[in-house]
């Protein structure tokens, strides 16, 4: 309990910004999904830290629900990527920026 909460804030901020940078930099759709996972995890870590420091179990329950949503999101996202790859033979996001044909 000696670690100040500000350090958790800093760590989560840095991880979140790395995720944002990854979404902006990369063009492979699968790596974009991974960067979204990094962002979700940084938020989860911060919520668990606040929950422990304030002695409130609701924060950890919400982390659990965020994990559920993340798992569902990854399943649907990867299915979409597989379908797109079947039609385009690539996962480069710049090729399907119109989502038309």
């Amino acid at each position, binding site marked *: 309990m000696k670690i100040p909460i500000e350090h958790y804030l800093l760590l989560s901020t*840095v991880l979140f*910004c790395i995720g944002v940078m990854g979404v902006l*930099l*990369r063009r492979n759709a*699968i790596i974009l999904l991974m960067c979204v996972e*990094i962002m979700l995890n940084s938020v989860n870590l911060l919520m668990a830290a606040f929950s422990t420091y304030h002695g409130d179990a609701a924060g950890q329950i919400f982390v659990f629900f965020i994990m559920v949503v993340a798992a569902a*999101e990854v399943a649907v996202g990867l299915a979409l990527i597989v379908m797109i790859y079947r039609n385009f033979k690539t996962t480069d996001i710049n090729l399907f920026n119109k989502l038309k044909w």
Partner: protein
Amino acid sequence: MSQYLFYFLAFVSIFSALLVVTAKNPIHSVLFLIVTFFSIAGQYIILNAQFLAIVHIIVYAGAIMVLFLFVLMLLNLNKESEPVKNYLMKGIGVLAGCLLALVMVAALHKSTMSPALGIPNEDIGLVANLGKVLFKDYVVPFEVSSLLFLSAMIGAVMLGKREPKVEPVNENTN
């Protein structure tokens, strides 16, 4: 002791997250992402949230990473085939990320944390305690999340199904 462990795990998670973004080979990105997830699970253990740590390892390292690796292998993307963006766009992306970090850190620097109400309960993250809260106060969201999982599963199966070939109408004219 736990302080040093915290800083070590923070360094490992940030470093491997940077490597996820910068690695050329997507397989290497997935492997570094697993390192990031394990270090975050270590952070949960430092926070005395054992249930979250175990669930995190099972869900992320066990299920999601297997899905990522499976799709990468299935689509045969394990080569450095990604076309590079031009350097202007890369520089703008890095600049935008750094500016976001700057804004967030400045906002957090000005804010003050409210002190904890009362004495925090140390073993709040144990399975027994969390299970009581989950099945007493949060039963309805728990059931709704099961519905969400069902719909996600049906959606993934529907999307992943190969569309049947359209039969030509005048096939048996001869």
